[in-house]
């Protein structure tokens, strides 16, 4: 039984990771071939870093992810605090409204945003598709994830803590920063990380809202693949996979540290 479950486990991991392993191996292949090994080389990495189109896309992706994360975290945290202060029924209604975009098919969200931006552009001349609309759409779809992470922390908090700060002479704003924010910080950080990965990773919504002037990595890769698949993309994918892996490990390590610290306390 035990060996059987080990084999089963092994198979699961094989099927999960085999494609990525192949991709990583072939990113080091010294040839254009996607099936025959011609020896180890870093040439695709070199070419990758000389490819202006990809580098631009990388910059767009990273800056959009960072700005969208910061904006969505601030807006989402503020929204969660506001919703937390509402009475039961209104809060549940708002939570439902918050959750809909997360279950809504991305393609619907993407097309809807495209239509909205196009409509506003037609009538006012603002919001031409480009970096701005890409950023706005990313901020928008990240907010619900932040709210979802912050909300439980607000509920776990001793509800009198904020009042205690007021009682001791804090104005409402400083009571929030001095007492409430440190309490809900773990939720804010998790929310920010989720927002960051969601933004980094997004393709469908970006495809509709980025326009031609500012494309992020996923959209750029997609348009490259339509022309030809070069091993450069293997190299890029390997780097992205590595970056996400490192990020995940960092998060896990910090969580474990936080837990053991909490246990000690």
């Amino acid at each position: 039984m035990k060996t059987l479950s080990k084999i089963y486990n092994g198979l699961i991991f094989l099927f999960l990771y085999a494609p990525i392993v192949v991709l990583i191996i072939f990113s080091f292949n010294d040839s254009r071939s996607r099936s025959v090994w011609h020896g180890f080389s870093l040439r695709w990495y070199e070419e990758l870093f000389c490819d202006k189109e990809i580098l631009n896309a990388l910059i767009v992706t990273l800056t959009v992810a960072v700005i969208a994360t910061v904006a969505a975290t601030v807006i989402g945290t503020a929204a969660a605090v506001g919703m937390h202060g509402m009475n039961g029924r209104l809060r549940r209604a708002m939570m439902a409204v918050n959750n809909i975009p997360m279950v809504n098919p991305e393609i619907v969200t993407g097309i809807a945003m495209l239509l909205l931006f196009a409509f506003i552009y037609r009538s006012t001349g603002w919001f031409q598709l480009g970096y701005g609309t890409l950023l706005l759409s990313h901020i928008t779809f990240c907010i619900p994830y932040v709210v979802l992470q912050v909300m439980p922390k607000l509920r776990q908090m001793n509800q009198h803590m904020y009042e205690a700060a007021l009682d001791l002479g804090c104005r409402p704003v400083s009571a929030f920063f001095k007492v409430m924010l440190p309490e809900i910080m773990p939720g804010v950080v998790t929310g920010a990380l989720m927002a960051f990965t969601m933004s980094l990773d997004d393709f469908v919504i970006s495809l509709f809202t980025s326009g031609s002037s500012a494309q992020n990595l996923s959209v750029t890769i997609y348009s490259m693949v339509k022309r030809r698949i070069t091993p450069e993309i293997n190299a890029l994918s390997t780097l992205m996979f590595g970056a996400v892996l490192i990020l995940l490990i960092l998060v896990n390590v910090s969580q474990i540290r936080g837990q053991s610290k909490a246990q000690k306390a």
Partner: protein
Amino acid sequence: MEKEIIKLKDIAVSFDGEPVLSGLNLSIRDGEFVTLLGPSGCGKTTTLRIIGGFVTPDHGDVFFDGKRMNDLPAYRRPVNTIFQRYALFPHLNVYENVAFGMRVQKKSREEIKKTVGEMLALVNLKGFEKRGVNTLSGGQQQRVAIARALANNPKVLLLDEPLAALDLKLRKDMQVELKNIQKSLGITFIYVTHDQEEALSMSDTVVVMDGGQIQQIGTPQDIYNEPENAFVADFIGESNILDGIMHEDYLVEFFGRKFPCLDAGFGPKEPVDVVIRPEDIDIVSPEKGHLTGTVTSVTFKGVHFETIVDFKGFKWMIQTTDYYEVGRQIGIVLNPEDIHIMKKSAYSGMFGDYSSYSEEFDELADPEADLVQESVDEENI
């Protein structure tokens, strides 16, 4: 001592259309230990929160030192609060928790250090400065909460069921300690509790509340010995409450028999509620008693036996140090000072009959359960 420090005038509050307080008038003297006592949902915590500035009354005024302070926000009021479950700041250590209020006020480093030291000495927590508040026991956290509130040098300290989460022994110790702190600092304490024993043993003045209204204000002795209605009589201690008729001053009839008493000022033949405390009743042999009854149950309580006795279908509780077995016929003697007469009220007939008395009811009235209920109530608010 005689100066009035806080006055609530004609306060009314409702949450979602449900009246929580109505027509509440209360005046608190400087240096007094006042307890707001009542069952959960009686409005005592809301009253405290109005004084603290966390609830705005729909109607009525709050005065502090003669000045109206309805519109003064909580952070400007010269009062500090000790919250249920303490509400300490977990991301700060003991020192920083106590220093919090002074840091907000931008006090000097030396002054903060001195005051924190004094406060921690006052609550017997010297040497705990660097500890995280989550590493402390419930009693220690309670002490930090007291030190944190007192470090702001409030004129009035508001305490919202501060001892409810502690176990019995610790609660008793903390009662004594709180009372000592109040005496030595001479500041006004307004204390909310549902524990009548706590209220009686600590307070200068007890305010008994029910249904969003004050039922009685008085010294602990007044409240216990001269309850104004059946609710107060039943809520404070145990009471046998009977229907009676006042024939003339100092003469009351119940159970078909006239008894001399110490109360006067009722109309002729006025129906009244008669209160007889279980510990005031003397048991004698049946032939010598004013009334005779049959013992139906006996519970040993340590100090005394709680004996339930059936008098013509109405069951009384009698606390005796002697054991009377179930089924035994006994007689009782009632002296004039054992009998207290109250005017009829909306509460008449609701309390004071031990026919349905059982141990289970005691368990239902468990303070922990009340506390949970209260916090649920607050969440709804």
